[in-house]
């Protein structure tokens, strides 16, 4: 029988700890395939966050560094400055990146660090059991907003991609989603492009991936995908927010 599909060499052949239906796994695969296709697995260093992907170092086939909560972009900065020919990425959730690590991501982008950040936005703190995150949507029920996020009390969600795209050091910023086959393919293209631009030495690249958390949203994986489509995409519009290689900037 002809082999039509093989698992990527960018991931180790081990089971992951993610909940059934969680899209962290798909995003891992897209990162790993991109690194494999670009032939850089051996010169890549990934920085894992604190959050559900804290154990990402067990899954990626490249060298990995586990950072303290929120500090991944600063750690990645140090790694890249020390090994300028390496390919360095951070993989961070919205609590890690948009709450406790807001300063690190903003300043890594502002300095134009030649690293790639994969930002997994699932509108919640997954690992600690579903508390409100800065990205939690207005009205969204979480453990710390049991009657829905009230923007008068708890403020408004942060659109991180739009915010970072205002910084001159960021060369490529795109928001993608993994809710459908078509969007998974687009997400793959974006992630690969982010790594390509890093390898070309262009500057800071950032891909925000809208992701689901069935466990803490209290929905089935199928319902979660629908919830993402109906609620997240309208608030967090998909698309390129900045691309210095293109004339037209949205």
């Amino acid at each position, binding site marked *: 029988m002809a082999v039509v599909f093989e698992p990527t060499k960018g991931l180790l052949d081990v089971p992951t700890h993610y909940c059934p239906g969680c899209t962290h796994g798909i995003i891992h695969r897209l990162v790993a395939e991109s690194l494999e296709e670009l032939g850089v697995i051996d010169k890549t260093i990934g920085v894992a966050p*604190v959050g559900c992907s*804290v154990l990402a170092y067990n899954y990626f086939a490249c060298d990995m560094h*586990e950072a*303290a*909560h*929120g500090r991944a972009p600063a750690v990645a900065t140090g790694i890249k400055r020390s090994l300028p020919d390496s390919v360095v990425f951070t993989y961070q959730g919205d609590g890690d990146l948009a*709450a*406790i690590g*807001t300063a690190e991501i903003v300043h890594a982008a502002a300095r134009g660090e030649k690293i790639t950040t994969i930002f997994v936005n699932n509108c919640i*703190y997954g*690992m*600690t*059991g579903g*508390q*409100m995150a*800065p990205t939690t949507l207005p009205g969204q029920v979480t*453990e*710390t*907003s*049991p*009657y829905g996020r009230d923007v008068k009390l*708890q403020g408004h969600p942060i659109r991180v991609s739009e915010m970072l795209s205002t910084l001159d050091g960021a060369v490529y910023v795109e928001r993608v989603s993994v809710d459908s086959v078509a969007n998974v393919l687009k997400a793959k293209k974006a992630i690969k492009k982010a790594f390509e631009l890093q390898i070309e030495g262009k500057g800071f690249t950032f891909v925000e991936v809208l992701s689901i958390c069935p466990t803490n949203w209290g929905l089935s994986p199928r319902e979660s995908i629908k919830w993402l489509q109906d609620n997240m995409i309208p608030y967090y519009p998909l698309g390129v927010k900045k691309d210095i290689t293109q004339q037209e900037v949205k």
Partner: protein
Amino acid sequence: MAKRVSLSGNEAVAFGMKQINPDVVAAFPITPSTEVPQYFSQFVANGQVDTEFVPVESEHSAMSACLGAAAAGGRVMTATASAGLALMWEMLYVGASMRTPLVLAVTNRALSGPINIHNDHSDTMGARDSGWIQLYSESAQEAYDNLIQAVRIGEHKDVQLPVMVCYDGFITSHAVENLEMLEDADVKNFVGENRIAPYALLGKEPMSMGPLDLPNHYFEHKRLQAEAMKNAKNVILEVAAEYEKLSGRKYSFFEEYKMEDAEAAIVVINSTAGTAKYVVDNLRAQGKKVGLIKIRVFRPFPAEEIAKALKNVKAVAIMDKLDGFSASGGPLFNEVRSAMYGVADGKIVTSYIYGLGGRDVTSVNIEKVYSDLFSAIETGKYEVYNYLGVRE
């Protein structure tokens, strides 16, 4: 009338906070403390408390917001653990020096690295010199009782210091125990409706909080802070006596368990005391003269009282659930041994580092410590620095 309830340590603390009804709680979640702000945010959402709850973006901001709220005269509480406490570090010192009373519930968890979510005391023990009062708790009951007393201790006019209430992550925070809760009205009465802040922003006098303090006054500032910590000793006992009248439960600087005629004793903090008491009972049944001291108040350190309590033992093992990396024993060991100097001289004093990163501590481990002590008494031969339950 007190109510008998079955609660986890985190629930007991969250319910205690509900009864205290603070003005402001600013918090960021971290295992195994997360449930405390989480339950509390639900009381806020249900309108069961009058508190402003702020789900801030990090612990550094949590403690900063708490200090701001306390500087404005509010009664303030929060909760954290491990790396969360570490991220508060800068503000811990600031809070103590600004003399802002507030209560921080800490579920003790090992400090990174390596990253670990289980219990030891490296987090709060690292903060022992930050100027905070530290109360430790063997059980959910003690965590609850300490929390309520902490408000009064910290806010006392002679003290005006922040207080940490510490209890073991998972072991105490997540295990469900039977305990006694006070009536809401009794708690309210005990802590008082509002904090009476002698100094606060927009208070009686014009005020700047946290200003620069150079060589001219910094030293005097610190000297006053040290005096407040000394004053806390009396206040802790006064508050405990009043609390005993209300609850029937007796608290002091430490608990002495079967120490009257003990020849071999151990000194220990938090939940391990429960295991150790079981061992003491068993060894006593065999006629062995063993006892235990469980520290409740580590800051201020009750040096004279501990030395006195150890005056009649032949040998004592001091147990630290963290390694201070001093190459000469853990912090509890060093402070107790130094307290004994000149008061309880000529004893065998040994250090045991145990239970790091959640390594289980069983009665067999504790029996070994007592048996080491008896062998030291009999032979005069012993190791001062020991690691308990580690693979070497």
